[in-house]
């Protein structure tokens, strides 16, 4: 067998320059000596662009941070089988740990199969679970298998998947719908995008199994409009699957029919809430409905509907193929299987990490993701996006499962894990999230619409140095009111970032309010810039850069900053090559 070269073309890879690498390889390769193809995202975003070479024996040689200038060497190596010349771009053993320490189920084909090829997916064992479900199992036994597996909703709520399927199956009526929530709105989470871009057939297969289980006549994928590549790949995959009879009328000759279509979202965070998503699917403003009735009884067009997240569906075909007990064998008492996290922020190795439940936060952040960049000090990890919370260092040994994470005040959420170091201000983070939820509140209920606004205003005055004694208590009181009074998950969880930062980083709030200082040196209104007379050589470059003309002095003598004129933009500090500008 000839060697095969595969370029990782997920959104991250393309943003890092994978398309140019592919073109260069195409030019460099001699026809017939080695083949060239694409794959999705393997999740090691910090190494992009990635090029994999599978040699004649199937052995993998993974090249990282590849540029078009490496194409010639890669092509020759693949053609001759001599990999010595590309040794310097092969993945380093410590970076390999990022992948070898993971356990992959939802992401098992990502970065391996060609997302644009149905044949590739089938060769990797794809669609055999759908065949098994349709020909060897009843819908009830499919639901039973999912029940045994312990699979719970991966979008954030962690609700048992089988229970929702069972409720939808038992609801009266012939017209039922299966909906996939791919409106991945949590800033900092991108596993759903990776699954759709890298392994769209796995999503389709999981959805068709779910559709069979509940008896759906149509399946709909509600995808964020911000994911253009995911929509293109999914559309093509659906076309291929329909052509081969895995989707549509009389699937695999079994008499079961269900078609699938894509609905592009239009940008509203609240549409991640299932009843808001249904409203949006019906062409309305995405405002949540009162529950009950739950979607299983009255959902899309008031017909029984079941909604699951992308990652949830991505586990389904594996469970049907390997059995519920195999999935349940992984994880902890109350949380089974694996979970994908998008590890980002100040870590050395950022990307997608799929691990069995039960690992600790420390394992993920320090062992897999390599710890903090520039060896700065870890401060907090933000879990669960705007609905989640910030977890401090003393809780890093917390075990990752639904119950333990909820006990910290954060949530598992969709799996966003943003790591922050000593330079991030925790009051600033709380304000950042509140600005987000204020903007995204649909406005239906007063507690959320006005409560988040007022919380944001108080946080703003604190970071501007205008905080008052009693503000923290006021925040806490208001948080409780918003939590209790809001209709949907958005409002009920919006106070979490404020409550957790107060709970674990109270001293930072106090420093802002009482001492008018920002310990992280991040809130510009609370900083004082000055010039160290010992270090300044009087080159005048800071004075020339200063937009406020606040710096004066005589060349070759130390300069001075007039704090009354200073607008604290930091331009002088960025300009000075002698480290003479200090910030307090």
């Amino acid at each position, binding site marked *: 067998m000839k060697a095969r070269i595969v370029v990782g073309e997920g959104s991250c890879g393309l943003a890092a320059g994978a398309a140019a690498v592919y073109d260069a390889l195409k030019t460099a390769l001699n026809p017939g000596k080695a083949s060239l193809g694409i794959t999705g995202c393997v999740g090691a975003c910090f190494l992009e662009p990635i090029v994999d070479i599978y040699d004649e024996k199937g052995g993998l040689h993974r090249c990282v941070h590849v540029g078009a200038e490496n194409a010639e060497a890669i092509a020759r190596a693949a053609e001759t089988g001599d990999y010595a010349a590309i040794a310097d771009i092969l993945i380093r053993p410590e970076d390999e740990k990022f992948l070898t320490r993971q356990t992959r189920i939802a992401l098992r084909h990502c970065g391996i199969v060609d997302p644009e090829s149905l044949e590739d997916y089938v060769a990797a064992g794809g669609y055999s679970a759908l065949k098994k479900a349709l020909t060897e199992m009843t819908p009830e036994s499919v639901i039973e298998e999912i029940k045994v597996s312990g699979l719970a909703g991966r979008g954030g709520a962690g609700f048992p998947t089988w229970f929702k399927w069972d409720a939808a199956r038992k609801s009266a009526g012939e017209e039922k719908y299966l909906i996939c929530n791919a409106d991945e709105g949590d800033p900092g989470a991108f596993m759903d995008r990776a699954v759709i871009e890298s392994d769209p057939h796995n999503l389709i297969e999981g959805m068709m199994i779910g559709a069979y289980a509940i008896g759906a006549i149509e399946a709909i994928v509600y995808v964020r409009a911000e994911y253009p590549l995911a929509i293109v790949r999914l559309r093509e995959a659906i076309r291929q699957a329909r052509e081969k009879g895995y989707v549509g009328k009389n699937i695999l000759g079994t008499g079961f029919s269900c078609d699938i279509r894509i609905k592009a979202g239009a940008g*509203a965070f609240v549409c991640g809430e299932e009843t808001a998503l249904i409203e949006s699917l019906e062409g309305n403003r995405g405002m949540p409905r009162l529950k009950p009735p739950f979607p299983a009884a009255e959902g899309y067009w008031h017909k029984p509907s079941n909604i699951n997240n992308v990652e949830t569906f991505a586990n389904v075909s594996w469970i049907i193929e390997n059995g519920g007990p195999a999935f349940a064998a992984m994880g902890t008492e109350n949380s089974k299987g694996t979970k994908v996290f998008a590890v980002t922020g100040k870590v050395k190795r950022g990307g997608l990490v799929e691990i069995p439940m039960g690992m600790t936060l420390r394992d993920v952040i320090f062992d897999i993701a390599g710890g903090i960049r520039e060896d700065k000090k870890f401060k907090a990890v933000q879990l669960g996006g705007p609905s989640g919370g910030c977890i401090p260092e003393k809780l890093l040994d917390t075990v990752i499962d639904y119950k333990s994470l909820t006990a910290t005040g954060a949530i598992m959420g969709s799996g966003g894990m943003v790591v922050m170091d000593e330079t991030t201000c925790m009051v600033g983070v709380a304000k950042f999230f509140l600005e987000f939820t204020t903007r995204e509140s649909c406005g239906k209920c007063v507690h959320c619409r006005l409560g988040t606004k007022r919380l944001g205003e108080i946080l703003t005055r604190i970071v501007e140095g205008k905080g008052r004694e009693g503000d923290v208590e006021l925040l806490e009181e208001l948080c409780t009111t918003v939590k209790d009074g809001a209709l949907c998950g958005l409002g009920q969880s919006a106070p979490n970032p404020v409550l957790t930062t107060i709970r674990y980083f109270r001293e930072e709030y106090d420093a802002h309010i009482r001492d008018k200082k920002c310990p992280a040196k991040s809130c510009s209104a609370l900083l004082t810039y000055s010039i160290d007379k010992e270090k300044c050589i009087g080159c005048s470059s800071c004075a020339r850069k200063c937009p406020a003309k606040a710096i004066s002095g005589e060349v070759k003598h130390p300069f001075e900053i007039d704090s009354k004129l200073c607008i604290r933009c930091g331009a002088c500090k960025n300009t000075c090559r002698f480290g003479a500008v200090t910030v307090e």
Partner: protein
Amino acid sequence: MTNTEAAVDLTLLDETLAEYAGVKGSLISILQKTQEIYGYIPPDAVYYISERTGDSPAKIMGVATFYSQFRFQAVGKYLIMLCKGTACYVNGAETILDAISDELGIGNNETTPDGLFSLSVVSCLGCCSLAPVMMINDKTYGSLTTDKARQILRDLRKEAENA
């Protein structure tokens, strides 16, 4: 809604309306097609859609203003979507925003007088490992620094001038 701009060619919508006007629940799809055609949602189009679908202009505007994807003014040749998701925020998206604003002389949701650039700050583009990130007309640019962001804009300006 008063229309002070040049009249738009509403017949461009006929194909879309023929396909969707009778399909219940397709208002968002119609609006997305409208924006694809004109680059934004022109006021005249709202009345036109209303006539053909039977939805009131108020209902159509209610839906359109709810979603951040829809714009009500024409955008420049290059639409800059600067990500302000959590990972980008932690990695300094604010300073990138300042640099872009300074380079182009525009703020969020504004367009340069020459009609070349529009700036829009968005919640999360999902390329968090490359933070800070911006997307310009469906192309993603990652690991931005203020200098890199300025250079990208200058290159695009040059490209447009040479075209």
